[in-house]
Structures are given as structure tokens and as C-alpha cells.
């Protein structure tokens, strides 16, 4: 129960800082803790945030009407976008080193602001290894109903989302093993929100965004003004469990005091209607863990894995009710892949239970995806042919690689692993099974190399 005093230096948006703040059309919240950057702000597609120190930056791109990007948004649609940003900010504060920004879209801009364009610009802005998640979506509105369909794109600058087994770097170049997550974007199924539900959730958030005199709901407090034309920015100056003490940033208006960011009930209704917000939360945990590796301390890699697993599971449970959709099943499959990668990194390859493959569920969720099968193959390859106490069957590893190639015969990552696998068997004759003679192995290796050459 200690209050941690914190430096007041925060939100270090660099060259465009003043400009971005000047652009605030609606409220913006910027927060920081010690050397960690935690910020929420509103910007546009031309002036992207540069949260120095943030491990992961989440950009919520303004949702637009499907097929009518220039149509003005209704109040409900605008409110929804703001709620998503606030929710992202509050749920991600537990990760410490994060930035959250809402990106407005100018429908008359000569170059449309797309997730792909944002990703490209963030690749140019971000320090190497840092992550970005871009949430965007399309809307359709009829009477008292608002439909939306979200999609999510995520990346780390200069670092592909891949998995490699231990000892891989000891192998010669061209004989290593690597598998990647299926390529994003992740597209979710359409959701329905009744406008009255949205208004109730908006009200919940407004009640939660109360700055109190002490870290207790019993303490008196004043509401933060959300929406409207008054910009605001805050510094985090202390933390007590799930309460944060915040102070207005450099002359910005607003009350100083305590705000609770850990109250799950505030988010529950919105997340039930938009389970992709759980997915977003889980993806940020995944990226944080991958950035800091198994030695991550604040939060620990174990907590990040637990958070990520819990949120992906929640997403799968909510979207799987009543059978679910193809889009959500694929999204859940990619989530299972992220959990699998964290498990392998956190628990260690050699410590996996015999016969268990963390990517088996991913393959079951998306059987026609070669990258999912390639990830599962990697575990089989390690077990049979790379681990010191190899116990798996090399035939099974070959079969899983060939199955991956069968569903996507041009997949370069699978072909590369198949070649590495055959090279491994060439060098380690004791791993071969009886039918795999020198000649047969040489022919298979040659066949893979021919396919690779044809692709160049």
C-alpha cells in the first residue's frame, strides 16, 4: 500500500507535440509514470504520435461508414470512437509503457488515412523493436442500431512476429528454423450496438472518470469533462494499487486527485458487446512480453502471459457462443498462436509436456492456414531433431511440414523449414527412419530446392 512518488515529466511527444495539442478537437488524456510513457491523445493522420519511451502505441483510427467514408458521423458513432479510446487507455495502463491515441480522419484528404498508411508511417517513426497496434473499423447505422466491424493490425518495428527454437543460431544460415504468425490484419465479425446501450456505457465511463480526493470510491470527487472542446492532459504522479494520482499537465485545466483504472465493471459491458477490445488488450500484453522477453519484470513475463491468455480466452468464449463466425474463429486462431509463442518463450521448449503442442489448437481453429501449421511443425521439429533429449518422431515432423505445404504450396516459410529439416537429417543420420535412405533424402531435398529456385 505504498504511494510511489513519480517524476512529473511525462508525455514526451517530440517535434509535433505542440502541434498535436493544438489539434485537440475533443478531450485528450495524457499520462506518464516515471520514465514510462503512458498517454492518450487525439491527433490526425498527418501528425502521428511519437510516444518516446512507450513500448506499444495503440492507435484507434476513427471508425467510418462502410462505403461512405465522407459521410458525417452521428453522435452515437463519434461517442463510440471516444469510448473505445478511453477504454483502451484505461485497460492498458496496467502495462505501464504504453501510448494510446485517437486518430481522426479527414474524409477530404487527398490520400485517405488507412490502417496500412498509418502502419507505414509508424514504421518510419518508431524506435526499432517498439510495437504498434492499429484498431480501425467500418460502421453501418439504421434507426436505433449501430453496427460496426473492427479490424486490427499490429507489428514491431524491424522485428517480424516469428518464433525460433533454441540453438537455432548455432545452425548454419540456410539451415535454420523459423515460423511466423499469420499475417495481419485480423478482421472481426460485425457487432451490433443499440444506441441506448451505448448511451448507458457512455454514462458508466463518465461516472468512472471521476477524480477523487483520496484513493477510495467513498472520497468526494469531480468529473473529468469528456468530449466537448476543452482539451486536457494529465500527469501520473502516484499509484496505489489500481488507483492513480493524476495532476493536470502544464497549465491544462482540470482537477487533481485519484482515479481508478482497475475497475473491470466499467469495461465489462463494452467488452461484452465489443470483444475485440479484449483481443486488443491481449495483443498489447503479447507485444509487451515479446519486447522485454522472458525476463520482463514490470509487469513480469508470467503476468503478461496470464493477462494475454485470459483476454484471448475471453474473446474466444464470447465470440464462440452460438457457433461463432469464420472471421472470429480465424481471429481466435491467431490469438492462440500468440499465446503459444509466449508459452514457448516463458516456459521453455524443453519443459513442454511430452506430446503437447501449444499450437495444436491454433491448427484446429484454422486448418487451411499454412503459417499456423508451420508453428506447430516447429515444436515437432524441436522435439524430434533439435532437443538434447529428442523424443519425438522425425516422420511426424516431416508430415506436419508437408501438411502445411499441402494447404499452401507456395508458402516460402514452410519450404525453408522443410529444406532445413532435410539438411538436419542429412547431417544426423541417426534421426532418419528406415524408409528414408540417402537417395530418397537427397531427392526430397533437391525437390524443395527446385521449388525455392522457381519462386525466385
Amino acid at each position, binding site marked *: 500500500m505504498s504511494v510511489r512518488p513519480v517524476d512529473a515529466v511525462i508525455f514526451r511527444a517530440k517535434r509535433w507535440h505542440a502541434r498535436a495539442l493544438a489539434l485537440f478537437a475533443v478531450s485528450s488524456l495524457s499520462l506518464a509514470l516515471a520514465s514510462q510513457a503512458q498517454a492518450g491523445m487525439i491527433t490526425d493522420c498527418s501528425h502521428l504520435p511519437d510516444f518516446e519511451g512507450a513500448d506499444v502505441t495503440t492507435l484507434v483510427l476513427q471508425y467510418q461508414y*462502410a*462505403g*461512405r467514408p465522407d459521410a458525417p458521423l452521428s453522435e452515437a458513432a463519434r461517442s463510440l470512437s471516444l469510448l473505445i479510446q478511453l477504454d483502451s487507455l484505461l485497460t492498458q495502463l496496467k502495462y505501464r509503457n504504453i501510448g494510446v491515441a485517437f486518430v481522426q480522419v479527414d474524409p477530404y484528404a487527398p490520400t485517405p488515412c*488507412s490502417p*496500412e498508411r498509418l502502419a507505414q508511417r509508424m514504421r518510419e517513426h518508431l524506435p526499432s523493436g517498439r510495437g504498434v497496434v492499429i484498431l480501425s473499423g*467500418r460502421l*453501418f447505422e*439504421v*434507426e436505433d*442500431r449501430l*453496427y460496426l*466491424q473492427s*479490424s486490427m*493490425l499490429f507489428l514491431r518495428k524491424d522485428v517480424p512476429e516469428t518464433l525460433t527454437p533454441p540453438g537455432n543460431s548455432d545452425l548454419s544460415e540456410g539451415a535454420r528454423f523459423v515460423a511466423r504468425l499469420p*499475417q*495481419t*490484419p485480423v*478482421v472481426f*465479425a*460485425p457487432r*451490433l450496438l443499440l444506441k441506448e446501450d451505448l448511451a448507458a456505457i457512455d454514462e458508466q465511463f463518465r461516472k468512472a472518470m471521476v477524480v477523487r480526493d483520496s484513493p477510495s470510491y467513498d472520497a468526494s470527487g469531480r468529473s473529468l469533462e469528456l468530449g466537448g472542446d476543452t482539451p486536457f492532459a494529465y500527469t501520473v504522479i502516484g499509484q496505489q494499487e489500481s488507483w492513480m494520482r493524476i495532476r493536470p499537465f502544464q497549465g491544462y485545466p482540470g482537477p487533481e486527485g485519484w482515479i481508478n483504472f482497475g475497475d473491470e465493471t466499467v469495461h465489462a459491458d463494452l467488452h461484452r458487446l465489443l470483444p475485440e477490445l479484449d483481443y486488443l488488450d491481449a495483443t498489447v500484453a503479447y507485444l509487451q512480453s515479446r519486447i522485454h522477453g522472458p525476463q520482463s519484470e514490470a509487469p513480469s513475463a508470467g503476468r503478461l502471459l496470464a493477462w494475454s491468455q485470459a483476454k484471448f480466452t475471453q474473446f474466444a468464449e464470447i465470440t464462440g457462443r452460438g457457433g461463432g*463466425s*469464420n*472471421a472470429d*474463429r*480465424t481471429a481466435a486462431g491467431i490469438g492462440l498462436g500468440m499465446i503459444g509463442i509466449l508459452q514457448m518463450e516463458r516456459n521453455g521448449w524443453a519443459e513442454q509436456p511430452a506430446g503437447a503442442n501449444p499450437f495444436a489448437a491454433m*491448427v*484446429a*481453429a*484454422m*486448418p*487451411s*492456414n*499454412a503459417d499456423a*501449421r508451420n508453428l506447430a511443425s516447429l515444436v515437432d521439429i524441436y522435439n524430434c531433431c533439435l532437443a538434447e533429449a529428442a523424443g519425438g518422431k522425425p516422420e511426424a515432423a516431416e508430415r506436419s511440414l*508437408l*501438411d502445411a*505445404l*499441402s*494447404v*499452401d*504450396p*507456395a508458402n516460402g516459410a514452410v*519450404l525453408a523449414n522443410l529444406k532445413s529439416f532435410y539438411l538436419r537429417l542429412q547431417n544426423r543420420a541417426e534421426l532418419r527412419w528406415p524408409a528414408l535412405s540417402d537417395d530418397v533424402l537427397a531427392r*526430397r531435398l533437391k*525437390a*524443395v530446392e*527446385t*521449388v525455392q*529456385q*522457381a*519462386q525466385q
Partner: protein
Amino acid sequence: MRGSFKIVRPLLAGSLLLLVTLPGSAPALAAMKGCDTGGVSGFKVFLSDVSVTGLQADPGKLSEALYFVLDGKLQSLPGAGPGAGPQIIRCPGRQPNISGQDYTASLVKALNTDDVLLDLWGSIAAREGGGQQQEDVWVAYYLIPLANYDPHGAVKPLQHANVSNPVGPLLDPVADIQAMLDRGPGFDTYASIVLGLKLAKNREYDNARAALCAAQSRLAAASGGAATPDPQTAALSAYVGDKLQQNYDAAIHDSHYKGAMRQLGDLLGKPNECPAG
């Protein structure tokens, strides 16, 4: 990364250019009232209008709902390849007949040449039922490559489904359309199949197999692992198996193809089957 889908509003100049440079497709485009690809390359999906019969209704809202659902489904269509996803082209004023009689052989051929994968439309019609007036909402789509390559096959190129609602304000158009498009083997499966057919004919054998494998896995999911799937799913599964086999045969007989199906052959498993999950 798949490209985004856009509404195409072709310029007149673009339309004229297309008519001049592609004489074979000119009659079809002329017959397709309101549908103009405007020189857009790549795979396309036509979205025709919603027709209203016998009641007062705003077809525009249902059209928008159709667009919303269709756009979302195409964004998650696997196998199209990065940046190669189909584009939606709206066809204002066009309302195909629910019987499919508009799709003459010459029109189908021209649309297929123009890389149109399917044409989707809707209708709302009044009906008396149970003493009160009902509205029947239909969604239909015509699978162009399937009609072109297999006009007399076991799988019909015209697919449609309907729901009936009491006459009144649209209750939940997106859910209705989703439910209709997901019924039976489902729109996603058919879209993967026609994509696979086109890719195979374009001699992109590897991508064709990927698209057909996606269709096969969706069919397996649709049948829920039942030992005897329903007749429609069973027929479609057999059709996809045939197309996988034909794609494989074409690949290994094409001297330009040097890919995995030729080099690794039987190691990849049966040509007409994709590995299960």
C-alpha cells in the same frame, strides 16, 4: 496485407476506354445496366440494387446493409493473396431477376473475362401469411466462374436464401443478411470456391489450391464432423475435391509450373484432399 475494398465510381473516359480496348466484353457491360468496372483490374464483386415489390420500404438501407456485410466478408476471404482481394462495384439501377434468367451464356462469359467473381443483390416483397402481411427478404448471388466453367454441374451458380419478417421497420437487417449468407455451406465457402476456380484458370495453381483448401476446411467445419453431412454439403465437398484434383492435374501437365505439387507430388497427400485440422 490485403488491400482495402473501395467503391468504384468510374469516369466516363475510363468506360469509353474499356469499350474500345476490350471489344469482347463490350456487349456484356452494355447489358449490365449500371455496372461499370471502369477499367478496374483484378477480381470484382458486383453489388446490384435491392428491389421492392408490393410495400413501402426504403431499399437504400437494405442496400447499405448488404454492402456492409459483403465488404466485411470479402476482407476476410483467404487465399486471394496480399493486395489481391476483390473490389466491390456497385450497380445502381440494376436488379437481376431472382430466377437467374438474366445470366445468359454470353453475359456470363463476358463477366468471367472481366474477372467478376459474383453478382449479389436483394429483394423485399410483400406476402400474406397467417392473417397478417409479411415481408419476404431475399438475398441472392450468382457465381460467375462456376456458371462459366461448369454450367451444368451439380453445384448451381445461383444461390439464394430468404427470411420473413412482419411488415414494419427493418428490425435487424445486418443479422438477417448475415444469417442468410451463412446458411448451408455459406457465402464464404462459395466465394473461396469461385476464387479458386479463377486462380486455377489463371494457372496460379498454388494459390488456387490454397483457396480451394480454405473452402474444404469451411465445408468440414459446416458439417461439424458429421459422418454423413447433408446432401448439399456433401455435393459441394465432392465438387471441391474434383476441382482440387483438376487443379493438380493441370499443374503437373503445365511445363511452366515448377512448384511443390510437381516436385513433391504424393508427399503432399492426396491431390483431391487437404489435411484436416
